[in-house]
């Protein structure tokens, strides 16, 4: 499917002629849906163009669209290239354009898997793509394509520069592009927006918490070892739940040990110490007996269970949030060492939240497309709930999703043979599957009910809940127990 470069312009043109001659009459549903999208086009910039004869077609639409169209006129020449007329802002041309972007991306990905000549071809395609899309403006598909283009570009550069990108430490950590250092307040704002606009974060947290609560009903002491505590918000609701168990024992003493991973401060909202202080204060405010500990890991991120402070008679819970949207990728060895080390502690419960990754087979291109579909679903889900809040979504995309896309592709590209989910890994390591209770499932459904209709939760096996958007599975939360024997 490698397209020769000089074919590209023709390809675009032919697409246009076909699309302009059709006058699709839209179904009611469709027009309602698409009408909510922000039209991308700026009619003004199309002055230098052979397609003047289309202006007649455009007239009726122009009046109604001029108010809505953002006039990118002089400031963003890179967005509108002479090729990109969308005569009628309707689903057809948006689809066609989106399809074209996907094809280009796929071509670029495919070109990257071959030799150096392929890399050159890929570079050319990426340049072309960069002309077509921008991360700030456009439809979902366009912005998504822009981020993917950036990611591919970075991969290409780091590859061409000799020596692969990143090595072991933290997924996309080895590959930076300009905007990597976000201001802390940006991160905070984006995190809030992410929380409010989508159920991903809450789903992961609440499912894990509910499982924990059910597992420790009769315990007097609970010790949670948290792999990546980030800002600690998960534990706020857990503490609240422990406090408000109306019947039964008083709240158990809760201890949280947070692992302090090197390099985690870069994109997190706060350091582990700050989080600890905050949790202590919060616990005090609601009357939950609590203590906080920190476990610093070496740069090679191997987890040593012996470095933890353990108390007799406490129930140990391992909490492993891996791929919530605002998390960055951790290296495979780090997570593996954590999980295998944890097994020696004989934990009562292990909660794991991870993304539904790209399928194992299919090579780079196949997994690239999978990743594209996944993030496309995420973008869609955000837009469906909040179609008017384009800038907010753009912020979330810029701060969280963009870097995630880069990290995702870097992992897929490096093909370290670590494909396959952590759930499978746990199973292979000898953990037993827990049971998702009715209450947990019910809670997830209710939570999704607060958001847009398109979210789905389904049970997968007896110990896993999978959150998805429409038919695309995105995030899974599973619970495990260690074997009691050994």
């Amino acid at each position, binding site marked *: 499917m490698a397209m020769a470069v000089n074919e590209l312009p023709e390809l675009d043109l032919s697409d246009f002629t076909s699309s302009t001659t059709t006058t699709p009459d839209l*179904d009611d*549903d469709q027009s309602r849906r698409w009408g909510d999208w*922000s039209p991308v086009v700026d009619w003004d910039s199309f002055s230098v163009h052979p397609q003047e004869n289309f202006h007649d077609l455009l007239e009726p639409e122009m009046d109604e669209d001029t*108010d*809505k169209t953002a*006039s990118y*006129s002089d*400031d963003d020449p890179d967005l509108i290239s002479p090729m990109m007329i969308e005569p009628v802002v309707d689903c057809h041309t948006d689809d066609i354009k989106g399809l074209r972007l996907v094809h280009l991306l796929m071509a670029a990905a495919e070109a990257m898997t071959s030799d150096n000549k392929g890399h050159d071809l890929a570079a050319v395609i990426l340049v072309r793509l960069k002309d077509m899309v921008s991360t*700030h403006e456009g439809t979902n598909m366009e912005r998504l394509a822009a981020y993917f283009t950036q990611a591919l570009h970075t991969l290409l550069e780091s590859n061409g520069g000799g020596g692969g990108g990143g090595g072991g430490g933290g997924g996309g950590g080895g590959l930076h592009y300009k*905007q990597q250092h*976000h*201001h802390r*307040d*940006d991160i*905070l*704002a984006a995190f*809030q927006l992410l*929380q*409010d606009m989508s159920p991903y974060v809450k789903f992961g*947290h*609440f499912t894990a918490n509910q499982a924990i609560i059910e597992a420790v009903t009769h315990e007097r002491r609970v010790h949670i070892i948290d792999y990546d505590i980030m800002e*600690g*918000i998960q534990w*706020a*609701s857990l*503490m*609240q*739940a422990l406090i*408000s168990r109306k019947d039964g024992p008083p709240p158990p003493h809760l201890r949280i040990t947070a692992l302090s991973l090197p390099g985690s401060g870069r994109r997190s*909202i706060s350091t582990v110490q*700050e989080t600890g202080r*905050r949790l202590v*204060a*919060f616990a005090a*405010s609601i009357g939950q007996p609590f203590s906080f500990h920190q476990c610093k890991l070496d740069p090679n991120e191997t987890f040593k269970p012996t470095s933890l402070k353990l108390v007799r008679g406490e129930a140990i819970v391992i909490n492993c949030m891996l791929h919530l949207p605002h998390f960055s990728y951790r290296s495979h060895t780090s997570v593996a060492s954590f999980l295998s080390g944890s097994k020696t502690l004989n934990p009562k419960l292990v909660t794991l939240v991870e993304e539904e990754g790209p399928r194992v087979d299919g090579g780079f291109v196949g997994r690239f497309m999978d990743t594209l579909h996944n993030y496309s679903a995420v973008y869609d889900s955000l837009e*469906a*709930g*909040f*179609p*008017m*809040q*384009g*800038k*907010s979504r753009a*912020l979330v995309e*810029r701060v969280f999703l963009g870097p995630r896309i880069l990290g995702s592709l870097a992992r897929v590209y490096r093909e370290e043979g670590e494909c396959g989910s952590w759930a499978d890994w746990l199973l292979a390591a000898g953990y037993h599957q827990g049971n998702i209770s009715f*209450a947990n499932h*019910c*809670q997830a*459904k*209710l*939570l999704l*009910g*607060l*958001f*847009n*209709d*398109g979210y789905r939760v389904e049970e997968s096996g007896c110990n896993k809940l999978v959150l998805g958007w*429409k*038919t695309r599975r995105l995030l899974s939360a599973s619970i495990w127990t260690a074997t009691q024997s050994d």
Partner: protein
Amino acid sequence: MFHSKKAAAGSTTAMNSLHHNHHQHHERSNMCGVGANNHNTAGAGTIQGDSGLVLTTDPKPRLRWTVELHERFVDAVAQLGGPDKATPKTIMRVMGVKGLTLYHLKSHLQKFRLGKQPHKEFNDHSIKDSERASALELQRNSTASSSGMMGRSMNEMQIEVQRRLHEQLEVQRHLQLRIEAQGKYMQTILEKACQTLAGDQSMATAAGYNNGNKVVGGMGMNMNMSMSMNISASSSSTSHLDQAAAGHRGGVMLLPGDHVPSAIKDFGSLNFPSFQDLNLYGTSQSPSPPAVAAAGTAAARKSPLVWSDDELHLQDDHHRQTEHHHIGVLSSNSSEAGDGCDLDSTIPSHIYETKPLTLASSHNIDHHHHHHLGLGSVDHQKKMDRTSPRRPPLSSNSSMDNMRATLSTATNNSTSNMSPQGRSSSFS
């Protein structure tokens, strides 16, 4: 004619009650027909038309969804990517069956979609609906599995339903409490962030800053008490954040208190309205501090405003409008949030007075989001007076309208259309 059919089709009333019966003619009888099409057509002759459709011989011929026709339908839907993506029009095209009209497909698709998602009924927050739905689901399951349910008596099934419902209510209650707890925690994060910035303010240069700063500092301390105030704080909030990010000029934080309150505002408004909508816990105020409760009610009322504001504070181009907007908001703020937040009406206005000065000094910053602050203070004033011919917001046409409306009326009645789409659809 239709009434008699409806009366006779006793087993379909339940199904009908779940559907929207918006057609008053034969489409409706189609729906009746599908479920219990034997009712009125049993024994009656059926015509196999040339088109392959099976029509009944009633005075008004209705379409019969035979197994083959339904299979073709399911195939077509699958081809199009699922019941969500398929539309009657495209299905019609794909199926290519003559005589099949959009109406047929519309109603059939609707039923198909609902039939595929029985779990959605759990999301209803009205007890009665859930009860009926759960009972229905159990019934459906029981008819599906042959021997499993046969042995159980109706009583047992009812008990099971009741138990599940009770559990569901418990879960709902807990869910609300947990979300609120998370909200409280977020507040602590934001407070910390705000206080850090209050410390930064000593680095600010212009006199105008200090004026606003003192006030903002005071505001910071009282952040807890005045979440409603956050809406006013708007400003260039994140846009200024971006500037700071890009330029890394810690000194020019302009009105540092702004972005934090806006962040609080975001959270405050976005979380609580959802539970307002739930209507189940209208009066229950969890043991959270009064601030949260105040935020709950105040923010809920203001949620539409907040959304347009949310748009605004990320749109740096429209500082003029944001200012006006916020002044408008302020006045409505003070009228509504009369819960002891004395600071509301006074502090924000100070901020806005100093605003033009602060904006003026920041016009040379280069940044990512095409911020166009390239105006001196004079220009800025001019800009305030003149209507902007320039780019309207990217995707918030209605938010612009809302702003203008707010300007003119200084109320927030007009912003009803700004409520987040997802929520309104969930709770309709």
